[in-house]
């Protein structure tokens, strides 16, 4: 099976995600807040009748400024050991065979554990490790 990477955009930031972890991409969906959610999550939604958490990608992608009023139009359903999580995205740019790009560690001086970079056609995109991110969050 050819290993692929999806390039996705959120609030003007483009990032890469291994396609192997993507279960589905939804329009919407309707999201809800729960009180005292663990840090790193921005809400929940229903997927296949189960309450699924939404990961807040702002810190991972260094998205700052006033939180947007409108919800991103798409949600990527991503599989982790602890279950499915939703990743809010504005658009799916393209899907690329992983071998057509290369991967690098984060730039020197970045915090340990920062995302690897997927390099494609001269551009570098954070290659997110959602499994590691979820595992690092407090419960």
């Amino acid at each position, binding site marked *: 099976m050819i290993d692929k990477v999806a390039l996705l955009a959120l609030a003007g930031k483009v990032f890469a995600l291994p396609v192997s972890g993507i279960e589905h991409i939804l329009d919407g969906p309707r999201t809800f807040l729960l009180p*005292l959610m663990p840090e790193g*999550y921005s809400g929940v939604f*229903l997927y296949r009748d189960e*309450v699924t958490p939404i990961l807040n990608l702002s810190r991972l992608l260094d998205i700052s400024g006033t939180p947007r009023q409108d919800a991103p139009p798409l949600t990527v359903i991503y599989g*982790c050991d602890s279950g499915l*999580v939703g990743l809010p995205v504005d658009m799916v740019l393209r899907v690329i065979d992983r071998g057509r790009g290369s991967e690098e560690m984060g730039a020197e001086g970045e915090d340990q554990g920062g995302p690897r970079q997927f390099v494609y056609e001269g551009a570098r995109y954070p290659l997110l490790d959602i499994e590691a991110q979820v595992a690092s969050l407090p*419960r």
Partner: protein
Amino acid sequence: MGLVAMKLVFRIAGVGFSLPLESLIEVREGMEEVGEILPSASDCLNLRGDSIPLRDLRRRLALPDFFADRGTLKALILAGSDGPWGILVDRVEGIFSLADFRPKALPLAFGGNESRPYDRIELWRDEPLVVCDVLKLETGWGDDD
């Protein structure tokens, strides 16, 4: 249908909650008579001549202050283990049959946080509601009183 088969749905800051009717003593409308309520203030309600505590569930759950105009606030008087106590809510959706609710698990990623004053959610009209367990709310209320 008996009370035990019904639940009240209410909201604080837009978040939905469900409460078994056997835990509810009274819904009190128009809370403007309570006076100048600060979100973090403890206050009291008069219940048939007795003064009962009014607890700040909004602050306990770290929800935004006073989503609704004070004049539309309602108080729910709950059957506590040591007597009745009240909470202010923004909106009461109504009373519904147990059949309208479906228990769901909290996401695994949320873990088992013992300090969180709720540990159950349920779906009502495809919306997750926090199940309001009066006894669990009472546990660890601590300094709010």
